[in-house]
């Protein structure tokens, strides 16, 4: 009963603090919303860059051209060997006869090419193996594996040599954007923490006289501090909801604007926030509540000395 009375009083004091210092509360919420929104903005930008890089990575593959007289069993064996590698996402084999069929289909309206083809004795095209790696960093390993003497002699050429530079570029963009994105989010989070810390300190500074009076009439430090902590956490919760709404509105507005820039495909921003909303809310909400709670506790304690 006593605990219930105490809790009710602490909650009441916190709510009264909010209502009676409404302007201070609004200013605190605005600062918290700005800090949260800027962190979310960077998270969104980072997600977009990651998606763009993933899109580029998805477009990369390597084609192995086998010699026209390569043994069919050896080619099939090479396909299975490559497919079994953990670094390989997919390996598609086009046998020489199918390659010829596809060539004919492609040039069905070009009688000159078809005539030239008919003049040849047999099928001039060898089998091809199209390989997609799980990560761009896996291609050098796959290429090395294809040097296996068992298959090396049957291989005419590989398209990797043409792509190697662009694969390296995409790889480097991906790594850099991840690193820069994380660093920027870290810096913004740190700036946000400093702003929030100082805002709460100023808010409590304006109430230092009240804290002194509470102490004079016999309030324990717990009784003085707790309403400030509750008040801070409630303001943080409101700020979190407002920033979540702003982010949702912002994403809904910007997604259609971005789609043409992504060749009409999904830029992945909305998808990212939908997939990660619970984690983002938990990390940001938890972090903010912890930050505001600790700051309020420490800042109020400063005026509780005696």
């Amino acid at each position, binding site marked *: 009963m*006593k605990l219930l*009375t*105490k809790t009710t*009083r602490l909650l009441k004091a916190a709510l*009264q603090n909010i209502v*009676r*210092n409404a302007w201070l509360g609004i200013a605190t919420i605005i600062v918290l919303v700005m800090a949260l929104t800027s962190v979310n903005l960077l998270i969104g930008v980072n997600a977009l860059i990651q998606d763009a890089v993933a899109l580029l990575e998805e477009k990369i593959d390597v084609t192995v051209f086998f010699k026209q007289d390569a043994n069919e069993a050896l080619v099939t064996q090479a396909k299975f060997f490559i497919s079994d590698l953990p670094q390989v996402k997919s390996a598609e084999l086009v046998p020489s006869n199918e390659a010829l069929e596809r060539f004919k289909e492609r040039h069905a309206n070009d009688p000159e090419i078809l005539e030239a083809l008919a003049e040849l004795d047999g099928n001039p095209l060898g089998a091809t193996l199209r390989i997609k790696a799980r990560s761009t960093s896996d291609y050098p390993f796959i290429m090395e594996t294809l040097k296996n003497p068992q298959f090396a002699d049957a291989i005419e050429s590989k398209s990797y040599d043409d792509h190697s530079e662009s694969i390296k570029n995409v790889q480097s963009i991906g790594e850099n954007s991840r690193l820069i994105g994380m660093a920027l989010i870290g810096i913004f989070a740190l700036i946000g923490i400093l702003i929030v810390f100082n805002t709460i300190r100023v808010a409590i500074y304006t109430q230092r006289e*009240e804290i*002194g*009076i*509470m*102490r*004079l*009439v*016999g*309030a*324990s*430090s717990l*009784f003085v501090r707790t309403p400030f902590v509750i008040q801070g956490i409630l303001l943080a919760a409101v700020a979190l909801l407002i920033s979540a709404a702003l982010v949702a509105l912002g994403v809904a507005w910007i997604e259609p604007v971005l789609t043409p820039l992504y060749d009409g495909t999904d830029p992945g921003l909305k998808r990212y926030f939908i997939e990660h909303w619970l984690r983002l809310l938990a990390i940001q909400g938890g972090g903010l509540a912890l930050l505001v709670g600790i700051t309020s506790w420490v800042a109020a304690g400063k005026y509780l000395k*005696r």
Partner: protein
Amino acid sequence: MIKLKNVSKTYPPNVQSLKDVNLDIDQGEFVSIVGQSGAGKTTLARLLIAEEKPTRGVIEIGGWDITRIRRREIPTLRRQIGIVFQDFKLLQKKTVYENVSFALEVAGETRKRVREIVPQVLKIVGLDEKLHRYPQQLSGGEQQRVVIARSLVHRPKVLLADEPTGNLDTLNTRDIIDLLLKINEFGTTVVLVTHNREVVNGLRKRVITLADGIVSSDKKHGKYLIS
């Protein structure tokens, strides 16, 4: 009730505010502590409510040695001493009722007790009609009465009033002093720190005079002697 044994207080770098003060105030006494500015009156008041610790000596209140009181024990002490200040120290964003009830709430009193006691003390100080006013809507005298009401809710054994009439006109001063006398009649020890000559001389109660941090005179039915 209040005992000070060889109490000294030195502020850094080396300002001696009180020097070897010995005092003995009995329960139910009405004592005025007088002296010029810088005599050590306010330091003495701050020591009694444990806002400061003495550099040397022992302070006892109701048999409790508060010389080396722990921080977490201070709220308990302050619930046993009613404190009245010249600048009122009211919570401006709380109503009259809330300012008074707050002192009970912090001590964990039940809602029922709060509802019983607060109207009673506000009636004693004559503010039972202004429960829902905020401090800024009251006169200086009324604000001081709220402070006195707040200090009475715990039925303190000691009421310490540090210049309670400093911000009041003659009429309100008279009212507040009458109120303190009434409280004293109920058995509460009243320690009045003041430099108001008329008030002290009109009381004809014990007067302790401080000068340069020492007790220069202690008269049972004294007068304000400092020019």
